[in-house]
């Protein structure tokens, strides 16, 4: 177990170093710079040069990179050029919001897809099964920005049940969370169903039935428990995907999370914010991959065994 954590830790650190170079370099070689965005066209000729000197943007990228690394090592993520807020503060407030949204989406995903997937598997070809497969097909086929338009139109504009955008209480979370979770629900639904179905054809299920275990126990405890490893492994992938989709969903719903801030800062070439947020996203991806591995590791007794032995 310790070796497992250690090896993944080293790998994560390496990915991180490579990512920091890629982010820093990528942002600066992208056409246009902060100066092109934050100077008025009317006095551009004068202002761009002045600004670049002031912010050190005229230095070679490699120098800028080492300045960036040195600052990060010292715990200084810098200050947004646009808002003059500290990047640490932006990450903290945005992060909390994204965590809420992502958490809501993840909860929604599992609370819908797991029971429905199990029921669909247990009653194959029933109305429940066909209904849930329809949800799965729609969830995967409808792009999330389009789903957002449909849901906002229906639940916000027509029915007035939910707000169309913005941040506030639980009500503000519902639509973005549903849109964020839609694809994950669809994929998980199929995954849970397929995995449970596969387990239901296993020999041990027959044994359970032969010893008089109730159908509920057979399906919801034994088949589901054994169906878990792929679901857990996919959980990491799913969280990673959710994180990526926040970039779209937060912008559509004007939800002030990290995705919103990242898109905003990249478009404005607000380097300090964009760099730090990109690294936070990469950290998220690395973390979720690690959690997926760990979950898989713990969910499967045989793998756990091997890990302990090896």
């Amino acid at each position, binding site marked *: 177990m310790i070796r497992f954590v250690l090896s993944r830790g080293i790998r994560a650190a390496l990915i991180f170093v490579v990512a920091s170079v890629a982010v820093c370099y990528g942002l600066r070689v*992208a056409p246009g*710079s902060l100066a092109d965005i934050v100077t*008025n066209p*009317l006095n551009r000729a004068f202002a761009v040069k002045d600004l670049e000197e002031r912010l050190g943007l005229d230095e070679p990228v490699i120098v800028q990179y080492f300045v960036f690394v040195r600052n990060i090592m010292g715990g200084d993520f810098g200050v947004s050029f*646009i808002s003059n807020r500290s990047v640490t503060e932006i990450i903290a407030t945005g992060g909390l919001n994204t965590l809420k949204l992502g958490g809501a989406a993840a909860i929604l995903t599992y609370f819908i897809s797991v029971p429905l997937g199990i029921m669909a598997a247990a009653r194959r070809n029933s109305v429940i099964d066909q209904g849930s497969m329809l949800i799965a097909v729609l969830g995967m086929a409808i792009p999330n920005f389009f789903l957002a338009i449909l849901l*906002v139109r229906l639940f916000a504009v027509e029915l007035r049940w939910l707000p*169309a*955008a913005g941040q506030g209480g639980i009500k503000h979370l519902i639509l973005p969370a549903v849109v964020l979770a839609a694809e994950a629900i669809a994929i998980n639904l199929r995954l849970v169903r397929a995995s449970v179905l596969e387990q239901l054809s296993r020999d041990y299920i027959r044994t359970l039935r032969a010893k008089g275990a109730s159908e509920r126990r057979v399906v919801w405890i034994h088949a589901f428990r054994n169906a878990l490893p792929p679901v857990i492994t996919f959980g990491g992938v799913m969280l990673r995907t959710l994180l990526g989709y926040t970039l779209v969903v937060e*912008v559509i719903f*004007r939800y002030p999370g990290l995705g919103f801030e990242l898109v905003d800062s990249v478009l404005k070439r607000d380097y300090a914010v964009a760099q730090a947020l990109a690294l936070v996203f990469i950290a998220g991806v690395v973390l979720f991959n690690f959690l997926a591995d760990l979950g898989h590791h713990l969910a499967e007794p045989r793998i756990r065994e091997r890990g302990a032995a090896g």
Partner: protein
Amino acid sequence: MTQTEESELRDTIEQYRNARLTRRDFVQRAAVLGISASVAASILAACGGGGGGGGTTTGEEGQPVQGGVLRMGYDRAFQKLDNVVGPWADEPFTAIYEVPIIRDPGGKFVSSVAEAWEFSSDGLTLSMKIREGLKFHSGAPLTAANVAEDFNIFRTTGVTANFWAPVKNVEEGENNSVVLTLSKTNYGLIETISTLFQSIHNEASRKAAGEGWGATTVDATGPFTLKTFKPASEVVVERWPDYPGSGVPFVTNKGPAYLDSIRWVPILEPANRANEIETGSVDIVKSPAAQDISRLQSNDDLVVLELQELSNYFITIDRTRGALGQPGVAQAMSHAIDRQALVDTVFFGHAVPTYGPIFPAYRWYDPGVEAYNEYDPDKARDLLKSAGLSELRFTLLTQNQPIQVQVLEAVGGMLREVGITMEVKAVEDAAFFPDMFAGKPDAFMFKWLWESPTDNMRFFGRVPSWDYNGNPPKSMAGIDAWESAATEEQLEKACRQVQLAWAEELPFIPLVTQSLVWVHHKRVHNFRPTQTSIYPLFNDVWIEA
């Protein structure tokens, strides 16, 4: 116009005011009376909205109530609220800053921070009397010395420094006045001085704030103070209780603002702006998507105000580049473009065709431009033929925004009809600006948006350079006339001269001016955007509890 027609017009306006006519009906009846859509639009604007599904006109009725938060949905990503070198003057500017001189709804220059101004008889000295008893948010008094200091900053490092070029010296004069000394006559300086980038601020505070100016700190004279600046999520201003009152004659509230605070949120997705005003998560939005406007007009809770934006979409082609520089090519392109079709299809009617560089609602608009650039594909083909071109192909650079791309798709189709192939390359802003200013593309499209249309031509004539734009002699002469005008009459004359020269020589090819549409909830009162300013003032605005 005959007497009967005049009385008919009065009836029509009356009916509209009493909301018995919809906006569409009004414009149709006006057209029967021979009134152009643009004039009808300005009449409507003067009437103050209304005309939406039997609602009342905007609430002049009732006593203003103090208090409340006004929630504004803004259509852009916020930049620093920096009046000196900011890249953009965002909506909160008119809440926290005040300009020295302001345009009234009719376009006349009237007082604000400056209560009076006068050119010397030789036109080489401009004296401005600053209102007494003014102070900054920080409590520091505002005197002519502060204004002179600001002007010196504006003319050396400010956004509009180029337009200040004729000013040799600025200093504090007697009696709380500022004296500007010019190297040549330049009445147009007033135009520049009344733009948002000459908003008055406390330079001492700006120095102290450093990079935080416009973000963590604004120390100015507007009725509201900056509270929160989180550009990605919200900008909040609060009533300044010590505000000494506005010097603007068309502002009725002479004391502190009514609203407790104004909260702006950026709503970048056009479809969402309509959704959010409809669902009530904001009280006012600017620029909903064109296709949503009729839906909003039929909503009884909302008031839709439509003005012509102080802007113009245009295409510039590189005249130094072979075929594009042949005489008549720009004119051929212009004749090939069916601007009314652009208005109808891309903007759902919420725009006006522009045949010259200035939008029709401008007070000095010269309708003479319309004759130069009428839609005439046969003429376009003839012009291309006389230029010896059987085909023409070029790549145009644009900002990657849906409306830009849609306009260009339509224009591309029209150009194809006469044998011109235009490939469009849409890129994000950060990539667009460096290339545009370096003159890299064969052609580019841009939308100028500025309070002084002629200053705008002075600027875009040189973007990327006069050479790129073909060094058009008449247009350049017109700009010279503007830059040396000594009186308002000369300025107007120069303005008309520039417009006609521009329409003829086409240093850039005008396309359309989009409507500036404001939608506000009925509980918002005294929200009165004018045709002559980019943003309304918030002094008089109040909101029902």
